[in-house]
């Protein structure tokens, strides 16, 4: 099941700002390899789930995966063919706001080639440019 908060204070929130570049979650915390975004975006919970599934399928139960982002922002939408006004639409899905430089996923316990391919498959599920970072210095970070 895609990620979403268990409990929220408010059902609907405003869009908020996506300005600037990431100042936190920019370095590897646990794993040896990471997937870093180079663009700003709203990553939906379904996209995160698709990435997780594709990485796990490629790794075939090897390695360990960390998801470093969490979709805690509800996005509301009006039904189709509804006139403007009459209040804000209903929450439809959840997103994680990512800024350039944010680490999205981390992997450990797998060789370089396997991690690279797993992240390539995962990156195809996201609509943002990404780069692989590793602890031993291959790539950025």
């Amino acid at each position, binding site marked *: 099941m895609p990620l979403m908060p*268990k*409990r929220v204070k408010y059902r609907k929130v405003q869009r908020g700002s996506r300005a600037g*570049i990431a100042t936190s979650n920019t370095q590897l915390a646990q794993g040896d390899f990471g997937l870093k975004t180079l663009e700003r975006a709203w990553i939906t*919970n379904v996209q995160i789930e698709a990435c997780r599934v594709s990485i*796990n399928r490629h790794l075939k139960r*090897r390695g*360990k995966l960390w998801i470093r982002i969490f979709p805690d922002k509800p996005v509301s939408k009006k039904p189709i063919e509804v006139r403007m006004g009459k209040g804000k639409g209903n929450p439809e899905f959840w997103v994680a706001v990512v800024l350039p430089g944010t680490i999205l996923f981390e992997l450990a316990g797998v060789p370089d080639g396997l991690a690279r391919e797993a992240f390539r498959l995962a990156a195809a599920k996201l609509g943002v440019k990404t780069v692989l970072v590793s602890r031993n210095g291959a790539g950025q970070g």
Partner: protein
Amino acid sequence: MAQEITVNAELRTESGSTAARRLRRAGSIPAVLSRTDGASELLKLDSHEFERMLSRHAGAQLVVTVVCGGKNTKALLREIQRDGLTGRVTHADFGEIDERHKMHVQIPVVLVGIPDGVANFGGVLDQVRHEIEVSCLPSDIMEKIEVDVSGLGIGSDITVGDIKLDDRYVIVTHADQVIATVEEPAKEEEEPATEDTASADAVAQPELSVKKGSKDKDGGGAQS
């Protein structure tokens, strides 16, 4: 002690974020050297040369010789700041070393060997801690500590207390801290039909942490 590393530096007079940004655009890295008497000197390093030096050495905290204006100073590379997006070094922090006094340094831990639990039982090696803090004389600082993990089975771990160093070193990090562990392989996932879950998720909503009754009193009709 690893081989001697030399860092060429020049004195800089300008300080502040604007000047630092100007320096970076010109291909330099702003740096600071803290003296043992408490004074500090503002330096600038050649960006390309410094990054190449870092790429050749594993340790985050290195003992280097800072050459500035014909004067050589033994210093510890205490901290490097990197750009979150590009990974380039944006600032370097050196501290002059007093050769007679012991100091605390972070030394990287490198795991050696393939654990038994990984090779024979399909476990996953998880390195929890990548550095440990050690107290030693500046001349004894090593680039890395190698830890043999080949004997680790599934569910077992290596802690800081298991690392044996000679008398010149005192490990500051708590002995109970886990360095590496071998975990059980991930269980096979049951993957339900994707479309069904997607439609179910569209309906699922988290509960509100604010009580509904209190909202109604305030006239929060939008919540219902």
